[in-house]
């Protein structure tokens, strides 16, 4: 990890509490261009809270979140999305009544320009725009290998596919920063491998294979991954941040984290003198 890489997103001394419950305590971290940052920690450590603060769902009481030199703390979620920050959810949050293709088209919202008046007239501007964005959406469908469910309503799809559609929807927004909240939760080994491959491929970029989709062509330079599966995290993350009870307890490369006694203590508990744990 070289330090000359540009810092894309910086979190300074973030504190968030719900009444007496302190969800995040003085957490600072930064995410640089060209890295996959994993946030791990036991249940209730505050991992998702960080993502929710970046998104603007939660309004942290203290601290700042700076994206590309711009303060985005307490900004409205849709404005954050417009800046190019997309995410997936731990519990899938798709538009259940729409087809796979329309879910992805709906994510193009921030990149489209037509309003309901040109939409009502349809022929002309709206039609042209639909086709233009459809082309990109089809490339994302192609990339994620979900062609067969293109016209299926997502509400009826199996869990693994819905997770994949949700990743597709996040990609369709063409984000600069992608926040993934447990993309592998509840999946079997093969599905995990598939998703891991998609994440790495989307991160690296696919070049000329997908000429109409900048996000697939050039890759997403910055990914934040919240995940419980240590195999996946150690395998694909460049850097790991460990949270425990709202505090950052460690930061480093996968190898450093594996050897960190604080982390082992948080996950496995501390051995007492009597050895009962």
């Amino acid at each position, binding site marked *: 990890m070289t330090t000359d890489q540009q810092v894309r997103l910086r979190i300074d001394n973030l504190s968030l509490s719900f009444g007496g419950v302190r969800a995040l305590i003085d957490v600072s971290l930064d995410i640089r261009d060209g890295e996959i940052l994993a946030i791990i920690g036991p249940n209730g450590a505050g991992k998702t809270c960080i993502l929710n603060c970046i998104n603007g769902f939660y309004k942290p009481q203290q601290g700042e979140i700076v994206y590309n030199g711009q303060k985005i703390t307490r900004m409205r979620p849709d404005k954050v999305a417009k800046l190019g920050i*997309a995410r997936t959810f731990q519990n899938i949050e798709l538009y259940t009544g729409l087809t796979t293709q329309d879910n992805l088209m*709906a994510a*193009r919202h*921030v990149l489209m320009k037509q309003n309901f008046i040109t*939409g009502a*007239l*349809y022929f002309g501007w709206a039609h042209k725009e639909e086709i233009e964005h459809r082309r990109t959406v089809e490339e994302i469908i192609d990339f994620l290998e979900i062609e067969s469910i293109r016209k299926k309503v997502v509400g009826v799809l199996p869990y693994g596919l819905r997770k994949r559609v949700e990743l597709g929807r996040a990609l369709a927004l063409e984000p600069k920063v992608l926040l993934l909240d447990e993309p592998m939760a509840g999946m079997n080994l093969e599905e995990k491998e598939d998703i891991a491959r998609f994440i790495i491929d989307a991160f690296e970029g696919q070049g000329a294979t997908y000429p109409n989709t900048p996000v697939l062509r050039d890759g997403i330079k910055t990914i934040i991954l919240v995940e419980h599966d240590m195999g996946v995290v150690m395998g694909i993350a460049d850097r790991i941040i460990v949270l425990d009870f709202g505090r950052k307890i460690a930061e480093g490369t996968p190898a450093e984290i594996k050897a960190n006694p604080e982390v082992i203590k948080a996950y496995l508990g501390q051995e007492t003198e009597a050895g009962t744990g």
Partner: protein
Amino acid sequence: MGLPSGTFNQGYAQDMAIFRTRTQWVMLFAFLILLFACPLFFGDRILTVLTIIGISIISVHGLNILTGYCNQISMGHAGFMAVGAYTSALLTAKLDFSFWAALPCAALAAGIVGIIFGLPSLRVKGFYLIMATVAAHFIIIWVILQLYGVTGGADGMAVPRPEIGGFVFKSKASYFYLVMAIACLGTFFAKNIVRTRAGRAFIAIRDNELAAEVMGVNLWTYKLQAFFIGCVYAGVAGSLLVHYVAFATTDQFPFMNSVWYLGMLIVGGMGSTMGVIFGAVSLKLLDELVTVVGPILAAAVSPQAASSLGLIMRGLVILLFLIFEPRGLAHRWQMVKSYYRLWPFSH
């Protein structure tokens, strides 16, 4: 929904087309020709029914975008129709506007009032929003009744018939054409709105408000846009109604109409442009059935039984649809279409 055997899409424009095959185009034109030939076959009574159905379709299109697509349940739709109706009535009767200038003003006025009463939707949802829209209906009607000097209050006011270049839309047939032309246009616009950017934003809000916001949909503007579009349709329908009757009173916009419009949506299928048409036609035809069966029932059983027959029938139909086919007639129609697409080989 698959394509008929042997038909393949080449390019996205074909894939997006509503009318894809030659048969579909033929069916569309056959329907339009039959529709506009109606005055040749039918008498004034049936034309009146069809005109009222047309006005209901326009109104329910608005409610469908607001409630069926954006999930902002409105029980004040008749009230918003009244706004359009009185705007148009006042402009034509008092200020000598032509109907053609008054109609867009009516649409705009209803839309703006819709936005005002839509403001609570940013804070309240579901049941509480229903209460807010119910209040909207009664406030609107109350204001109209109070402005006696302007609107004639409970006495109502006379409204001129529309005219164009000396031709007055006085006959039932001519007004039928006017309403149906606007209904067709309204259907075209409604379908296009829901299949483009704004429509997908509405559906996103309906299906998952949380995700919609994270994916960049501004809830504030899009909910208000849904209210605006929904009430513009209501305003047009209200204006057409008072110019048809040539008289405006608040009795034309009873609260129960708001409920029946929602009923039409339920019967037809929420969130479906075809469903709007199915719903409006079927509930209005049910009314006609009641006017036929009613007198027979009155003679056979008792006048009391006949007087409430209409309410009972409508209530029963809506109830049965909620239980057995919550997705409405539109969904049945889809099932029939897919069945015949594969017939006689069902697998």
